């Protein structure tokens, strides 16, 4: 079972306490944007076999949203961090680099 540490309340939450919220750090395109941008924002998701960043909600706990860095190939968790950021903090990136040297995800590396 997947266990994520909720950075909001500090609890090590089991998968059944959590709700997956999909890809993290989406840039939102709305009215006035190009068709391609809007299409990609709505439907295209990163689908990596490896390092992935996601939004999660501690649904049956404190109820707050947060971010998680995970490996989709091994289910290894690299760390969780606040929802109020536009990109993963350096310590999360470092933790990933320690285990997956040379990783990239969208523009992050």
């Amino acid at each position: 079972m997947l266990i994520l540490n909720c950075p909001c309340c500090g609890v090590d939450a089991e998968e059944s306490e959590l709700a997956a919220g999909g890809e993290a750090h989406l840039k939102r395109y709305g009215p006035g944007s190009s068709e391609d941008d809007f299409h990609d924002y709505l439907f295209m998701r990163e689908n990596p076999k490896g390092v992935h960043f996601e939004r999660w909600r501690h649904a049956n706990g404190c109820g707050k949203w947060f971010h998680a860095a995970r490996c989709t190939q091994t289910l290894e968790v690299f760390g969780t961090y606040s929802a109020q950021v536009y990109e993963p903090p350096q310590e999360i990136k470092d933790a990933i680099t320690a285990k997956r040297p040379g990783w990239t995800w969208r523009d992050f590396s």
Partner: protein
Amino acid sequence: MKHYSAFAVAREALRYHTGWERAWRSPEPKKRYDAIIVGAGGHGLATAYYLGKNYGIQNVAVIEKGWLGGGNTGRNTTIIRSNYLQDPSAAIYEKARSLYEDLSQDLNYNIMFSPRGVIMLAQTQHEIRGYQRTAHANALQGVKTEWIGPERVKELVPIINLDGPRYPVLGGLWQERGGTARHDAVAWGYARACSAMGMDIIQQCEVTGVRQENGRVIGVDTTKGAIDCDKLGVVVAGHSGQLAEMAGFRLPLEAVALQALVSEPIKPCMDVVVMANTVHGYMSQSDKGEMVIGGGTDGFNNYTQRGSFHHIEETVRALVETFPMISRLKMLRQWGGIVDMTGDRSPILSKTPLQGCFINGGWGTGGFKAIPGSGWGMAQLMATGHSPLTEAFSLDRFKEGRFIDESVAAGVAH
């Protein structure tokens, strides 16, 4: 290829079964093929088979990273039905179901198609309305289904408990000609027929790159060297995203794990397939007597081909209420497969931005039932550039807003 028949069994019985030949050849790849199919699962092999049978394109290779039929073709719960809500879905799934009817004769390979009937249980008022709507839609589409009341459900499935406190059975959508087939045999039968046409099935050979020139595909790089081709069909289910990345485009897909389990074998107790979408569980009894149970998806991106215990617990807990007699069964095996999900829960059969490269994927949690129809349509698309079966499932439907929304109609137990 030697013909399988009752006579052949008798002949071999008299000579200690020394005359059977291998069902398919395992050749080394040639330098060039007219068409290459990546992925030797059911959909890939069916595509190759109908390319040869319907369009005479027989210089074909099917390339497989692992072993033939070792992905989702060998990991599903073998259910075949076509009671879908939307017209394009009903068309392709009904084509598949009708091809399954005489596939054993067509392939000269017993795929053990068993049209035992499929019930989708309605356990909430919402589901009653949904399934009645589907039954009406099916009537217009020419797919034979019927809305049945709880008494008829009990008649068809004597072991069911209609009055569960939490999930009462309020009726069901009944498709009499739905059923099951032997999943491995479907892959093996197609493989044997493809091999007999002279196609090469190359196992243990991973595609590592897609070669292109002036926006056109010219071949693939593999662990067994470069192979040239005119047309490329990508039919790799969970790994569609990886292949698309090699080919230089993106797909609106996410890979998640779906799991299933089987019980110890018991005496025959249920001769139909029962699906309960409210509780994310479905069950049928295999010819060996095992209860085959399918569960829900994880809900997050996952490439591990493993399940998780709490999903099994959820599924089994709900099924035990509906089928009290299974509460003391031991579960024998549990496994997971990687399914590629689209936003509208319908597949993608389409041309791609790379000329000569076609994609067949996104079947999500419901690909097995579609294998012959998917192969039929995909072969037509690859051979002629157009297929009425696959037209609606093109990649640009997302941009154009032409969704084929089956997520409400089919839910998780798809």
